[in-house]
C-alpha cells in the first residue's frame, strides 16, 4: 500500500505555538463561551413567530438566526472564529452540573425549567415553554411493550437525536456559494411542498452562514485592531473567502469545517456532532499549499493546535478520525494524520481523536496513535480496519463505502454522508432475561410476573438455554415494533436540514435525512452486560447441572434472597469459578456464543427503511443498571441485586479478573465482524505500563496484538487509583484530569460522586495487574 503522502518532516520535532499556553488558560476559564441560552431565546422566538411553518423550516430558521444574531467567539490568540459551546452536558446522567446548559439551548425539546441559573428577564422569555410544553413523540408500541423497560429487560429507542455523521467534504468542495447555487438549480426543477420546504430550509442556513462569515470578518478586523494582532487579519481574509467561494487553503478549510460543525451543534440537542475523517477531508488543501510552497508541516501543525483549542469542551463526544484505508483500498495515512495525533499530547488539549489502523499502517503512525492514546486526553480510540470494513461489507455496504467509515460521537461506526444512523437502540440486558427464565418468569426486583408460562425446572442446561434464547427473541420481536415506529415518525419531530445538506444526494432528493434519504439506513442495536450473562450462565451450568450442587429451586431461593446467608458459596463463585476477563477459553467460547446469539436475533428483520440492523456492544445506561434504581436482581455469578453491570466489554465489577491481556483475549473471542455498529471497548491499565524507556513500544505492541487477534475498537485508561482519590478530595488541584468512560471522555472532577467512585473502583481493579 502506498504511504507516499507521508513526508519525513512530520517525524521531526514540531513546536507548539507559544500562544497556545495563553489560549488554553482563557478557554479553560470559559472566556469565550457562547451562552447556550442565546440559542434557546432564538428558538423561542422562532417557535412563536413561525408557529404554522413546517418543522424543518423552523429548525433551519433557528440555525440561521443564530448565525446572524449571535456574536462569534474570537479570542486575541485564536486562528478561527465561531461559536463555542464549551460546557454542554454529554450523555444524560454523566454530570448534573452542566445539565441546564443543554436544556436551555433546546427548550423546544426539554421545555421550561424555573431553576435555570439565568437572569430573570431571560427567564421571562422562556416561560413561553411553560405555557406551551413541547410535545414528546408518541409511540403506541412503547406503551404496548412497556414491560421491556419497566423490568429493565431492554430499552428499544430508535430516535437518538444527533448521531449522524455528515460528509463535510460536500461543503468543502463546493463552498457556501456553490451549495446555494446547487439548491437554486434544484429549486428550478419541479418539487412538491415537502421538497420545497426542505430546499428552502437548507438554503436559509447556507445564506445565514455566508452572513456569519461576513460578521466574522468584521469581528476579526475589530479585534485585530484593538489587540494589535496581525494574524486576525488573516482570520478575516479567510472568512471573507468563505463568504464568496470555496476554501483555498488549509486554514480556510479548517474554518469552514468549524462553521459546518457549528451548524450541526446548533441543530442538535445531542452531543455527538463529529467531523469524520478529518485528515482525508483536509489533505487536498494541505497538498496544494505544499506544492505552492505556502505551508510547511510545522505551520500546518500550528493551525491544528489552534483548531483543537477552538474545539475543546469540558466533556466531549465529538469524534475526529485520522488514518485508515482509502475508498480505493490504499493506505490513507498522511502528514495530517500524524500532525493531529501529535498535536493532542503536545498541546495537552483534550478532544476525541480516533485513529483507524490496519496491518499495513506505517510504524510511525502506530507510534503516534499510541502516544496520543497514552496522553489520556479524550475518548478516541483505535479502530481496526481489518475487522471493521469486513463487518460493514457483511451488512451489504459497498466496499468503497465501507473503507470510508468513521466513528461518530463515542464509538458508533458510520459512513459519512451515506448513513442515517440510529444508534444505541436496544440496550438489551441478557442477564435480566436469564433472571426471568431462572425465576419462572418473575422479576426478582418487583416480584411481578412477566412470563407466567416459563416452566419451574429444566431437565438440562441446554433446555434452559433454549428457553432463554426463545425469550431473548421474544424481547427482540417486541422491541422491533417500537424501533420501526420510531424510525417512521422521526422525520415528523426531528428533521435535520443541515445534515441532509451534507448527505450525498440530499439536495437532488430534496428529502430529509431522517426520512430515509441516505444510501444506508441502518439501526444499531446494542447489548449490555455481556460479561455478566456469560459469568451467570457458566455458574448456573456448573452449580445446577454439571456438579449438581444445587437444585434449581435452591438456586432460585438463594438469588431471591440476594445471596443472604451464603457467603461461602458466593465467595467460591466469585473467586474460584472462571469468569469473563481471565482468558479462560471456556468463558471466551461462551462469550462468543452469547454475542452471536444476540446478533442472530436481528438477522430475520429489516429496518423501517429496508436496511440491516447493525449489532453494537455498548456500555450500560443509567436506566438499566445503575445502583440508584436496581432493575437487575442477584445473579448466579455472585452479583447482588442492584450492583452495576459490566461496562461494555469490561469484566464484571464483581469477582476476580485477569491481566489486561486476559481481558483482551476474552474480548477477541467475540466475532466482531458481527458488530458493525461499534463496540465501545474501554479498558483500564496501570499507568506504569506506558512509562519508562519501553512504555510507548509496549502500548504499540499491545494495540497491534489486540488488532492481530481480531479486536475492533480499543481505548485504554491509564489511571492511578491514588491519583483519582486525591483528585476527588482536592478537585482544585486536578482540573484537567481526563478519564474515558464508556461513550465519552470527561474531566474526572466534573463527574457525579457515584460515577467517580466507579472509575476509582475500575482503576483499583487493574492496579498492579497490568
Amino acid at each position, binding site marked *: 500500500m502506498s504511504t507516499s503522502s507521508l513526508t519525513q518532516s512530520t517525524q521531526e520535532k514540531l513546536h507548539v505555538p507559544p500562544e497556545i499556553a495563553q489560549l488554553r488558560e482563557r478557554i479553560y476559564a470559559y472566556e469565550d463561551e457562547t451562552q447556550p441560552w442565546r440559542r434557546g431565546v432564538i428558538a423561542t422566538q422562532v417557535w412563536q413567530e413561525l408557529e404554522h411553518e413546517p418543522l424543518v423550516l423552523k429548525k433551519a430558521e433557528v440555525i440561521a438566526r443564530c448565525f446572524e444574531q449571535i456574536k462569534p467567539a474570537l479570542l486575541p490568540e485564536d486562528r478561527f472564529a465561531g461559536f463555542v459551546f464549551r460546557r454542554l452536558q454529554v450523555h444524560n446522567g454523566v454530570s448534573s452540573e452542566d445539565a441546564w446548559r443543554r436544556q436551555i439551548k433546546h427548550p423546544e425539546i426539554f421545555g421550561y425549567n424555573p431553576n435555570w441559573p439565568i437572569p430573570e428577564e431571560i427567564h421571562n422569555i422562556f416561560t413561553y415553554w411553560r405555557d406551551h410544553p413541547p410535545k414528546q413523540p408518541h409511540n403506541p408500541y412503547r406503551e404496548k411493550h412497556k414491560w421491556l423497560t419497566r423490568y429493565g429487560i431492554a430499552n428499544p429507542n430508535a430516535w437518538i437525536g444527533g448521531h449522524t455523521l455528515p460528509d463535510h467534504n460536500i461543503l468543502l468542495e463546493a463552498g457556501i456559494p456553490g451549495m446555494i447555487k446547487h439548491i437554486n438549480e434544484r429549486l428550478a426543477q419541479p418539487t412538491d411542498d415537502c421538497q420545497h420546504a426542505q430546499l428552502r430550509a437548507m438554503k436559509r442556513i447556507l445564506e445565514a452562514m455566508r452572513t456569519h462569515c461576513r460578521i466574522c470578518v468584521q469581528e476579526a478586523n475589530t479585534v485585530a485592531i484593538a489587540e494589535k494582532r496581525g494574524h486576525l487579519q488573516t482570520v478575516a481574509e479567510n472568512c471573507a473567502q468563505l463568504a464568496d467561494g470555496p476554501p483555498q487553503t488549509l486554514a480556510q478549510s479548517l474554518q469552514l469545517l468549524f462553521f459546518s460543525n457549528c451548524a450541526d451543534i446548533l441543530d442538535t440537542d445531542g452531543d455527538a456532532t463529529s467531523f469524520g475523517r478529518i485528515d482525508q477531508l483536509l489533505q487536498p488543501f494541505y497538498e496544494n499549499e505544499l506544492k505552492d510552497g505556502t505551508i510547511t508541516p510545522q505551520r500546518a501543525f500550528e493551525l491544528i493546535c489552534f483548531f483543537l483549542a477552538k474545539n475543546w469542551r469540558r466533556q466531549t463526544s465529538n469524534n475526529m478520525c485520522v488514518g485508515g484505508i482509502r475508498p480505493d483500498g490504499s493506505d490513507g495515512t498522511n502528514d495530517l494524520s500524524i500532525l493531529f495525533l501529535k498535536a493532542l499530547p503536545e498541546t495537552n488539549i483534550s478532544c476525541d481523536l480516533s485513529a483507524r489502523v490496519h496491518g499495513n499502517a506505517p510504524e510511525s503512525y502506530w507510534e503516534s496513535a499510541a502516544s496520543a492514546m497514552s496522553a489520556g486526553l479524550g475518548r478516541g480510540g483505535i479502530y481496526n480496519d481489518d475487522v471493521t470494513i469486513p463487518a460493514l461489507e457483511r451488512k451489504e455496504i459497498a466496499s468503497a463505502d465501507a473503507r470510508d467509515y468513521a466513528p461518530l460521537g463515542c464509538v458508533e461506526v458510520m459512513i459519512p454522508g451515506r448513513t442515517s444512523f440510529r444508534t444505541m437502540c436496544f440496550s438489551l440486558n441478557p442477564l435480566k432475561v436469564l433472571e426471568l427464565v431462572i425465576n419462572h418468569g418473575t422479576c426478582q426486583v418487583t416480584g411481578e410476573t412477566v412470563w407466567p408460562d416459563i416452566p419451574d425446572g429444566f431437565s438440562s442446561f441446554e433446555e434452559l438455554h433454549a428457553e432463554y434464547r426463545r425469550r431473548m427473541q421474544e424481547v427482540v420481536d417486541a422491541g422491533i415494533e417500537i424501533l420501526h415506529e420510531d424510525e417512521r415518525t422521526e422525520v415528523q419531530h426531528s428533521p435535520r436540514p443541515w445534515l441532509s445538506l451534507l448527505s450525498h444526494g440530499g439536495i437532488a432528493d430534496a428529502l430529509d435525512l431522517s426520512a430515509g434519504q441516505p444510501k444506508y439506513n441502518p439501526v444499531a442495536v446494542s447489548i449490555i452486560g455481556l460479561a455478566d450473562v456469560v459469568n451467570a450462565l457458566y455458574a448456573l451450568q456448573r452449580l445446577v447441572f454439571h456438579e449438581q450442587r444445587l437444585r434449581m429451586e435452591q438456586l432460585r431461593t438463594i438469588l431471591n434472597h440476594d445471596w443472604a446467608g451464603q*457467603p*461461602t*458459596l458466593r*465467595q*467460591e463463585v466469585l*473467586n*474460584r469459578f472462571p469468569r469473563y476477563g481471565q*482468558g479462560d477459553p471456556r468463558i471466551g467460547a461462551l462469550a462468543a456464543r452469547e454475542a452471536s446469539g444476540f446478533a442472530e436475533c436481528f438477522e430475520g428483520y429489516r429496518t423501517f427503511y429496508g436496511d440491516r440492523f447493525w449489532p453494537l456492544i455498548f456500555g450500560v445506561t443509567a436506566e438499566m443498571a445503575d445502583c440508584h434504581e436496581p432493575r437487575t436482581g442477584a445473579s448466579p455469578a455472585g452479583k447482588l441485586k442492584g450492583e452495576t453491570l459490566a461496562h461494555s466489554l469490561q469484566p464484571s465489577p464483581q469477582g*476476580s479478573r485477569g*491481566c*489486561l*491481556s*486476559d481481558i483482551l*483475549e476474552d474480548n477477541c473471542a467475540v466475532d466482531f465482524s458481527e458488530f458493525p455498529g461499534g463496540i465501545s471497548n474501554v479498558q483500564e491499565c496501570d499507568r*506504569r*505500563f506506558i*512509562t*519508562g*524507556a*519501553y512504555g510507548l*513500544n*509496549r502500548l*504499540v*505492541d*499491545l494495540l*497491534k*496484538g*489486540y488488532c*492481530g*487477534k481480531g479486536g475492533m475498537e480499543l481505548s485504554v485508561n491509564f489511571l492511578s487509583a491514588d491519583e483519582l482519590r486525591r483528585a476527588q478530595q482536592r478537585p482544585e488541584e486536578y482540573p484537567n484530569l481526563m478519564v474515558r468512560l464508556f461513550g465519552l471522555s470527561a474531566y474526572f472532577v466534573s463527574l457525579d460522586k457515584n460515577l467517580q467512585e466507579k472509575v476509582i473502583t475500575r482503576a483499583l481493579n487493574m492496579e498492579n*495487574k*497490568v
Partner: protein
Amino acid sequence: MIPNDPALSPATACAVSAEADAGRIFDIQRMSIHDGPGTRTSVFFKGCPLHCTWCQNPEGISSYPDLLVDKNRCIGCGQCTTVCPVISTDDESGTAQQCVICGRCADVCPAGARYLAGQRMSVSEIVQAVQRDQAFYGTQGGATFGGGEPLWQWPFLRDCLDRLGELGIHTALDTCAYTEESVIAEVAPRVNLIMADLKIVDRDKHARWTGVSNDPILKAIRFWNRNCPDKLWISLPLVPGIHWAEELLEVRAFLLSLENPVKIRLVPYHSVGSIKYEQLGRQPPDFDSDAVDYIFEQARNALNDERIEFLPEP
C-alpha cells in the same frame, strides 16, 4: 530431594536439581513491565542459593512449597478447618505451627485467601504459559526467568530456553549469577538477555548479608562481560544500611575492572515485599525506605564513568 542449603556449592546444587523432571515454579506474571524490555511474561523459579536479607520474593527462597495467607481476604467460613487436621478455628486466618504445607486448605478456600507457592510444572506448561501473550510481545518483549534463582534448576531452565528459542520468543534471565562455570558458559548462547545481580562486591560482607560467597557471582559476570557483553545488564540493588559510599566505590572499581563497558540498572530497595513476609507468617525486613533516594543519587555520582551506561527503567 531438592537442595536448599546455602552451604552447598553451586556445582552440587545444579547436579542435584538436574534430576528433577519438572520445574518448581512459584508464580507466573503476565504483562510484566519491570523484568526486561517490552511486555513480558515473568516465570519465577522456586528456590534460591542466596538468602538476601532484603529479598522481595521471600516465597521464592525455599525450594519447597510455601503457604501464603492473606488475612484480609479471609471471610472466616471455616472451610480450611474441614480439610486440615492441624489448623484450628483460632488460627484460621493464619498458618498452624504444625502445618506441613500440603496445600489442601488453599484448594478449598472460597475467598482465595490461601495460596500455595511452588507448583511443579513441565517445560510444555511453561512454554504454553509464555505463548499466551506472544501476540503482545512485539519485537522487544518475551519471557523472563527469575525467582528465586532460575539457574538453580538449570536443566529444566535449559529446556525451557531451547523451546522458546525455537519459537523465536525473546528470553531474559534475571539471576543472582551464583552458579557453576559450565552453566555460565552454557546459558550465554541460549538466552537473549542476562540481567545479573551484583549485590555486594566485598566478599565477607556478601556472605554476611546473603549467606554465600560472591566468588562464583563475580566470575560469572566477568565471563559474560567478556564473551557476550551486549547481552549483559548488571543490576545493582541499593539497600539502605548496606550500600553506602564505600561499597559503591568497590562496585565502581569492579565494574571498571571488567574487560568491556557495562550496562547497569540501579534497583532501589522498596518495601512492597513486606506483605509477602506477613502472609508467610515471617518478620519482614526493616530497612529505611526514606533513605533510598539519597543512595540512588550517591550511586549515580559514584558510578559516573564513560564505561558505565545507566539503563533507564524499563
